[in-house]
């Protein structure tokens, strides 16, 4: 049976993550007749996602066509919008009180439980799933499932928003080589822990028995080996990130965080490596709702990219600006620059720019690819532009939610 395509339902994939707050507000009136608790919970979702929908209203049109529904704590459907009816083919009366596994083929019913468990564990789960339409055809969709926080009532505990993928957007099948690489990346982390631990113990023993100072030749060699182990772990992490991004299996742990702390943490490794990074940040806290670990990775990847494509010792500028409803993070370098025709390609997997003659060609060309996935999963957008006076400026806009109000 041919897979349904989302082409006619999905005018713009660009807005996939972006206008959720807008669509949540848009569909709220459509949920009239749904349990009052469901409506309250939808407002919580709108609050959680914040005013990003206004910022990205151009993308909200796509989201007005998104399926938007609410589940109770047991995974039963308690509210169902007209777009969900159009996409899945079920009328609201047909799905009321039915378990979400209704939307899956019989042999994939366990996927429904996995999806709910992931949202429970993470608060907000984003991924690509394959569902079954009322007429039996399969359809791949990008879903975002929110476990509504702090709600004890079992009446409505999950909110889901999803869009069908256009043909060609379905996650590619994982090849044997890719599967082995992924498994190897996972499995190598345990022995790396042992090596790192053994080196630490060795350092302590040496210090104790030889009275070596923290900077003796022996302890320097131990530190060098530890740094190399950490670098190996970074490479393994990159392999896993690329795999997750490609499979649409990126998961976020959303919560209130401060972009200032995120920036500081992302900056630290670069400063330790004695790179010249200047910062231009607003005064005070910069609260937003996001996944701090993933955002830290964005900061670090952007900075490492800038350093890599810059002449040795040339400064890199990291700036955060406050915009209405958003925070703009940008990283500028004075490097070799990017050709105009390549500005849109730098976020593609395995894109590699021209290096400085003396640059280290290390890395796998996936840092910016991962950055784009993370920023878009936060409902933001990221782009590259030429910097006045030479070099490149990478810019990411993140929707800013009011936290704690």
């Amino acid at each position, binding site marked *: 049976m041919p897979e349904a395509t989302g082409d006619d339902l999905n005018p713009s994939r660009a807005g996939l993550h972006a206008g959720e707050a807008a669509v949540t507000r848009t569909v709220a009136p459509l949920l009239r007749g749904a349990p009052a608790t469901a409506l309250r919970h939808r407002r919580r979702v709108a609050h959680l996602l914040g005013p990003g929908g206004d910022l990205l209203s151009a993308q909200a049109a796509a989201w007005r066509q998104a399926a938007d529904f609410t589940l109770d704590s047991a995974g039963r459907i308690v509210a169902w919008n007209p777009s969900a009816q159009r996409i899945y083919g079920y009328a609201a009366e047909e799905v009321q009180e039915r378990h979400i596994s209704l939307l899956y083929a019989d042999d994939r019913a366990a996927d429904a439980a996995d999806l709910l468990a992931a949202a429970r564990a993470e608060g907000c789960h984003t991924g690509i799933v394959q569902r079954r339409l009322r007429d039996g055809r399969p359809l791949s969709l990008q879903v975002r499932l929110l476990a509504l926080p702090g709600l004890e009532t079992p009446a409505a505990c999950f909110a889901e928003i999803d869009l069908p993928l256009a043909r060609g957007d379905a996650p590619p099948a994982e090849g044997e080589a890719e599967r082995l690489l992924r498994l190897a990346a*996972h499995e190598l982390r345990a022995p790396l822990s042992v090596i790192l631990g053994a080196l630490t113990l060795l350092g302590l023993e040496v210090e104790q028995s030889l009275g070596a100072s923290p900077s003796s030749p022996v302890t320097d060699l131990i530190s060098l080996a530890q740094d190399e182990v950490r670098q190996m*772990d970074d490479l393994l992490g990159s392999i896993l990130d690329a795999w997750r991004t490609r499979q649409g299996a990126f998961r976020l742990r959303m919560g209130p965080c401060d972009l200032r702390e995120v920036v500081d943490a992302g900056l630290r490794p670069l400063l330790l490596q004695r790179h010249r990074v200047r910062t231009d940040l607003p005064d005070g806290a910069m609260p937003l709702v996001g996944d701090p670990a993933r955002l830290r990775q964005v900061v670090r990847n952007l900075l490492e990219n800038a350093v890599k494509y810059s002449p040795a010792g040339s400064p890199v500028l990291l700036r955060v600006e406050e915009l209405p409803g958003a925070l703009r993070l940008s990283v500028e370098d004075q490097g070799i620059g990017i050709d105009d025709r390549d500005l849109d390609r730098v976020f593609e997997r395995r894109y590699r720019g021209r290096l400085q003659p003396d640059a280290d060609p290390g890395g796998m060309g996936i840092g910016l690819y991962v950055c784009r996935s993370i920023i878009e999963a936060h409902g933001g957008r990221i782009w590259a532009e030429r910097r006045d006076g030479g070099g490149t400026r990478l810019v990411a806009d993140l929707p800013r939610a009011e936290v704690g109000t």
Partner: protein
Amino acid sequence: MRILVADDSPGIGTILTRYFAREGHVCEHVATGAAALRRLAEEPRPDVLILDLRLGDMSGAEVVARLRADASLRALPVVLVTGYAAADGDLPPEGSYQALVPKPFDLQEIGAALAAAVGAGREPA
């Protein structure tokens, strides 16, 4: 402090046991979930459990679920360790464990997580 490490890697067991012994603690290592549950039922009871998310015989989440269902072990602080990015792991419900430390970890890092977990467990509810 009495520490129990449940991890199917003998290397991790050796490293953590030696490190915590240096720090003045008593540390034991078991390689399976079943062995961990058996040991936790015996005296003297460990004060904290360092638990790998993937053991040969059961998942770390299952071990945590069994602990939380047992009145005498419900309050035992648990520090999870995983070679999987947390995103991929089969995590127990939030609130049922005190910390999650990804591998590879620094020994000081896991020591700090342990101290925080035990401290949190001792705070009045």
